[in-house]
């Protein structure tokens, strides 16, 4: 980090307009930004803050339906990007400014081998011949600690894991040794354990090549590890900018402080009731998709009025367990008890009342709500189906449910899902679930697609509803902060097995099972030295795969 420290990127009064409803509306309102060589700037904010839009604008790129307003200035290494002709801009991208997208799985072309996508830019810019470039790619893969660096590039994107793909994409961004890389939420879609691998790989490589970077994220703890400087954005405006330590220790603006404070929500832990039958009991359940076994002897209980968090990485079988409980995937052996009585394994064989008792809330409220159906009908249909309500009684019930989820009935009754924000949609999803008057609700990653402030609102709502209606929750999540705030009991799953379970306070205190320990220690903390310390503790070669096998 001793090299050249001159100014690389200077953005002045950046204004970007988006086209909607036949009008151009300003969505970024005059942002200034200065980035030096080798420096990493974190852009943080909630969705709609304009982070990605600004990041892309630094490459002179806008998505369809957006444009950079006149008077904005983006100066990259002495070149004014707003007036550069399109062909020159194109030859800048990939070569001198590179981009790392949020979802590597979606951003790699499924039709081509990873290494062929890597070598595309170097070959096109005649920086390297194919073989040289492949050799270079393998070296980068090795530096990024990908397994089988000489071989992995010759696979297709769907043949490697998400975390590996994300590292391969970072390597691809490095292919032409750019001066600047835009990282657009590169770890948001990953599990905590995988996130660490990617974060440390990014940090090392940016360091080694003295590359400047803009790191876009909504996760404060992550940005604290990565950035030298943090800029907080809100709805296209800058809130404040400061170097990382100052920002973490002494945030000035109220909005920044509120972002910092989000993680404080915590409700009291309830003890297990004694001498009662559990509401839902999963007993020695095995399950398989086709011939592939996914669950092995899974057992846990959920008591009335309690929240059980089921945690684990993707592929650990959390959602499959939920599918077994709801009867969508009949277990191959074992049984599901409800109030002590065995439920038929297949949902088709269950009675209406059995179906009514167990309901689900989904991760993506966007796709779980039919966009062409009015809110009144979305909530009204289950109320009608399960309770047989009609006419004014049905309308009253819908109003009551909207009241419960804290949305003004008169205002939302006739609206459609696309008119609502992400948090409001999730509330509608909750109301639809409540319409069945269930005793037990499975919440499948219900907050992971939401901004922190909004997610907290949903958690508070779920907590309130639990108190009022004595609901039981099975909370599927990979976010341990969520677990800390609302769970009574925790079930940790790995490779389709339950590795550890117990009351939350016990689970969060050592000694842990090795895997629980790995999960817990992988959750980023606000401390900017957290990643460095952790890596030292684990040993550089011991992150990721190695740690998992322990």
């Amino acid at each position, binding site marked *: 980090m001793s090299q050249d420290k001159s100014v690389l990127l200077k953005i002045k009064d950046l204004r970007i307009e988006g086209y909607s409803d036949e009008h151009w509306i300003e969505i970024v309102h005059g942002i200034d930004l200065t980035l030096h060589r080798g420096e990493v700037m974190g852009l943080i904010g909630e969705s709609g803050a304009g982070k990605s839009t600004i990041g892309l604008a630094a490459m002179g790129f806008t998505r369809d339906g957006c444009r950079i307003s006149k008077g904005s200035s983006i100066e990259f290494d002495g070149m004014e990007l707003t007036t550069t002709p399109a062909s020159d801009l194109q030859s800048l991208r990939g070569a001198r400014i590179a981009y790392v997208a949020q*979802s590597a799985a*979606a951003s790699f*072309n*499924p*039709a*081509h081998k990873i290494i062929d996508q890597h070598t595309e830019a170097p070959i096109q810019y005649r920086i390297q011949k194919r073989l040289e470039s492949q050799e270079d790619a393998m070296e980068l893969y090795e530096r990024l600690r990908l397994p089988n660096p000489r071989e992995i590039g010759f*696979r297709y994107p769907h043949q490697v894991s998400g975390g590996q793909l994300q590292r391969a994409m970072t390597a691809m961004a490095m292919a032409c040794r750019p001066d600047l890389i835009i990282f657009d939420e590169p770890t948001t879609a990953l599990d905590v354990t995988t996130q660490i691998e990617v974060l440390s790989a990014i940090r090392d490589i940016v360091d080694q090549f003295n590359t400047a970077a803009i790191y876009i994220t909504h996760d404060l703890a992550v940005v604290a590890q990565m950035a030298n400087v943090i800029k907080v954005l809100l709805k296209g405006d800058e809130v404040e900018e400061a170097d990382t330590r100052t920002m973490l220790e002494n945030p000035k603006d109220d909005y920044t402080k509120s972002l910092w404070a989000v993680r404080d929500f915590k409700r009291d832990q309830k003890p297990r009731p004694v001498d009662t039958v559990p509401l839902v009991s999963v007993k020695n359940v095995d399950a398989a998709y086709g011939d592939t076994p996914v669950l092995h002897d899974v057992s846990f209980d959920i008591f009335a009025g309690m929240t059980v968090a089921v945690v684990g990485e993707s592929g650990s079988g959390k959602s499959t367990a939920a599918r077994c409980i709801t009867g969508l995937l009949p277990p191959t052996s074992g049984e599901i008890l409800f109030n002590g009585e065995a439920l038929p394994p297949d949902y088709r064989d269950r009675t209406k009342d059995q179906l009514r008792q167990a309901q689900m809330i989904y991760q993506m409220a966007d796709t779980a709500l039919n966009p062409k159906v009015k809110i009144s009908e979305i909530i009204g249909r289950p109320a009608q189906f399960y309770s047989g309500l009609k006419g004014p009684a049905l309308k009253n019930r819908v109003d009551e449910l909207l009241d419960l989820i804290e949305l003004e009935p008169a205002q939302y009754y006739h609206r459609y899902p696309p008119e609502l924000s992400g948090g409001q949609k999730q509330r509608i999803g909750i109301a639809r679930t409540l319409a069945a008057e269930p005793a037990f609700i499975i919440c499948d990653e219900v907050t992971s697609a939401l901004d922190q402030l909004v997610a907290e609102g949903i958690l508070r709502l779920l907590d309130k509803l639990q108190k009022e209606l004595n609901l039981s929750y099975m909370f599927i999540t990979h976010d341990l902060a969520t677990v800390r705030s609302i769970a009574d009991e925790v079930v940790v799953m790995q490779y389709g097995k339950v590795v550890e379970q117990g009351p939350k306070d016990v689970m969060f205190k050592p000694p842990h099972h090795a895997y629980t320990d790995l999960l817990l220690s992988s959750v980023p903390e606000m401390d900017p030295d957290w990643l460095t310390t952790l890596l030292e503790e684990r040993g550089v070669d011991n992150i990721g795969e190695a740690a998992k096998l322990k």
Partner: protein
Amino acid sequence: MGDILNIVLKRLGLGLVTLLVISIIIFGAVELLPGDIAQAVLGQGATEENLAALREQLGLNRAAPIRYFEWLGNAVTGDFGRSLVSQTPVSEAIFTRFGNTLFLALYAAIIAVPVAIFLGVLVALYRNTVFDRVANVVTLTSISSPEFFLGYVLILFLAVKGGYFPAIAKIDDGMSLVDKLDRTFLPALTMVLVVVAHMMRMTRASIINLLASPYVEMARLKGVPAWKVIVKHTLPNAWAPVINVVALNLAYLVTGVVLVEVVFVYPGIGQLLVDAVTKRDFPVVQACCLIFAATFILLNLAADVGSILTNPRLRHPK
């Protein structure tokens, strides 16, 4: 690759079942035709004895299911019976005719498919420009005009006025390939004009559909030129719907060309079918329909396999 073979075999099996069902429908439909077949063949002047004799000869007195299985059993071995009109074996008449139809369809397809896909890529690249609109209007006009009209227009300008190509596409086995291609150029061109629009628009639509995907944005942000974004990053993922439309149009080239054959006096199977229907020559009708059905099923099977083969997830399993 074992998986793919498995899928293909399964589809092939399903295709055979479909063909069986269709054969029942065809046989049933012919049975349902109003009037007496013997009467239709022999004409109004036939005596009762003659009619009875013919019925006996054709086996019309026996129950329909028995006759169906007999017919099916023979058809499987390639024997479709004798034509009621010419008394020659049906398979003989159909064999050359179907060959001619396939020749013309192949001729048209070899021109139409590459042209349609190339144009589709071009209009996707220059989408919403004048070129895009003109290509759209022209191809839509050609697809909206009836084949016989297009055929006559082509005859008028390219045969009668220009004299470049013959207006009548009568071919026989003795002709050289070049002669055949020259003779049948106008009917082939007519069919090309009819099918290009559909395939071109599907190519355009499925490419444009993918332009919003993250990997296309990634390619652009890597500095990949626009044409390469389309050809290298979009097209390989756009094949599945395109292949299906291509198969549909190929099937149409085989089975939907009666009008073109009539206009150009081309000895194809379509004309044979129409003649057979008017003359109540039901063995010929049944055979033609069965061949058409088999063509449709085979081409759809090919499309399914094609879509699978263009899917990298299936080609390169984990």
